[in-house]
């Protein structure tokens, strides 16, 4: 049994409105294991980003506990969390005036000293991260000059340079064309499989997620979270519970949704 890196017990996530907690998903008992690529699927507004924000520690859970490698997250410092989990989010960044290398070097911040001086090892890690995402040729370019897809790859490289056991990505393939989407998913799968990392990503790309992810976390339209391999979930008929519309159904041959 692979080591469980992130686990939740009766976790409830949601948001605050007018000072009151509004729970989106409750009673979550999730387990993210080393060496697996997990895809979080669900329709718009289902709570994917909310769940990811809770798991990354950006928002406090409404109830239940969240553990990183068996430790309650609330007892961990910001730096300890930074060394445990790398993030690729959809936030806009104002780092256009940095080169790609400088951007990726920021991933070393949790490992460098007070002044952030980089060692030879740090430079090697950065170069290797850039190579992994195939962006070495852009190393000296300004971040602002990149296309959306290139920027996304560099943000993944930044997370890789952080050398964390877990990587969480919020819709990493959203802006990418099909070829880049496949490459990116393959890269993330390799990271999990060959480097033993746990990779959790949210996605709207059904076929790629079903083909490449080791495990799926499905948020159904009535806010249940179902987990399992693609095969298991398809056998349970879970795929048809993703969307409320009876006219949209899952086609197992296409590995995608279609009109009935």
């Amino acid at each position, binding site marked *: 049994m692979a080591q469980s890196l992130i686990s939740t017990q009766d976790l409830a996530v949601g948001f605050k409105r007018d000072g009151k907690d509004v729970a989106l998903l409750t009673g979550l008992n999730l387990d993210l294991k080393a060496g697996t690529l997990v895809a979080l699927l669900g329709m718009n507004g289902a709570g994917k980003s909310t769940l990811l924000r809770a798991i*990354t520690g*950006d928002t406090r859970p409404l109830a239940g506990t969240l553990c990183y490698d068996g430790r309650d997250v609330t007892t961990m410092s*910001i*730096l300890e*969390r*930074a*060394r445990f*989990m*790398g*993030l690729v*989010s959809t*936030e*806009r*960044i*104002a*780092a*256009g*005036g*940095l*080169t790609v*290398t*400088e951007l990726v070097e*920021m*991933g070393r*911040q*949790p490992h*460098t000293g*007070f*002044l*952030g001086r980089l060692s030879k090892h740090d430079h090697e890690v950065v170069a290797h991260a850039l190579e992994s995402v195939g962006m070495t040729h852009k190393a*000296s*370019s*300004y971040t*602002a*000059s990149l296309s959306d897809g290139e920027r996304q790859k560099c943000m993944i490289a930044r997370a890789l340079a*952080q050398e964390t056991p877990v990587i969480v990505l919020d819709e990493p393939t959203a802006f990418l064309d099909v070829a880049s989407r496949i490459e990116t998913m393959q890269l993330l799968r390799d990271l999990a499989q060959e480097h033993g990392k746990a990779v959790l990503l949210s996605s709207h790309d059904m076929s790629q997620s079903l083909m490449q992810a080791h495990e799926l976390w499905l948020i159904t339209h009535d806010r249940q979270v179902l987990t399992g391999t693609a095969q298991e979930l398809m056998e349970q008929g879970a795929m048809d519970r993703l969307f409320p519309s009876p006219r949209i159904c899952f086609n197992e041959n296409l590995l995608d949704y279609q009109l009935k």
Partner: protein
Amino acid sequence: MQVNESHSATRTITVMAVLTTALIALAVACLLVGSVDIPAGEVWSIVTGAGSSNDAWEIIVLDTRIPMIVTALLAGAALAVSGLLLQTTFNNPLAGPSILGVSTGAGLGVAIVMLAMGGTVGGIFGQTAGSYVAIMLGALLGAGAVLLILIVFSSIVKNSTVLLIIGILVSYLASSIISLLNSIATEEGISNYVAWGFGTFSGVSMTQMPVYATLLVLSLAASSLMVKPLNAMLMGTRYATNMGVNVQRSRGVLLLITGVLTAVVTAFCGPIGFLGLVVPHVARLMLGTSNHSRLIPATMLAGAATALLCTLLSVMGKHVIPINAITPVIGVPIIIYLIVNRRKIQYFN
């Protein structure tokens, strides 16, 4: 656009060398130029300690020109770094201590303290040693109050333009309170205040210099220790946190540094506009980077050089021109250039 690593190192060295040369040249010019003509040879012998045949010249150089040069270069570096820290902290390229009302807040603090002490409103001129410490505390509290208002609003309104407007409104409010305070001040107080409000680098005497210089040098040194969180904050709060930065604490420290820098300069030199807003952009354009490890030293040098340029222009004519009449002439064209070209300038994207 490609930036070769060795190319960028060369560029950094070139920029630093150019700025340092400009700084020295401007300092020398400020020593030589003034309403009283003193021959360069005489200035040289006064500065080197050989003395001069004319006692008045000695007093002018040692007690007026040198303190003015030191005051200006520290004030310039301080305001420019304040602007840079505010721009990064609020993720707003148009932030600066004067436009966000931090300078005016410090000015209001000064006015209130002076009135409370039974004196007159208006800067630090002619104050006793004890009272200028109180005035500086007043400036610090005023600047701090405005920064607190900005922090509160920045957590409510995410839009950076709205934050600027709030800063401008706070600034108007503080100005109006200062005017109200002025209406109950004495005649002499008002003229003092007016002179202070115009901005001047001639207000720091040699006895006040140690306090002024120490506070600014320490705060500037502190700002250069914040390179790591500053760079992380370019990526936004969520990423910065993910890189191990305690964003709330770093923001607090950065705003404290900004507050001290702006308050000290404002207490001694008056609310000086534009320098803090413009200089960081000049430094970014010259270096071609938003990386604070290079940006902070370049901003200090460029700020000091710009303040000396303003000083030189202010003393070149027959009458001394107020600093605040010069800074917009230099600043506004640069701001307009930046706004017009923002699509082309890499760090805006």
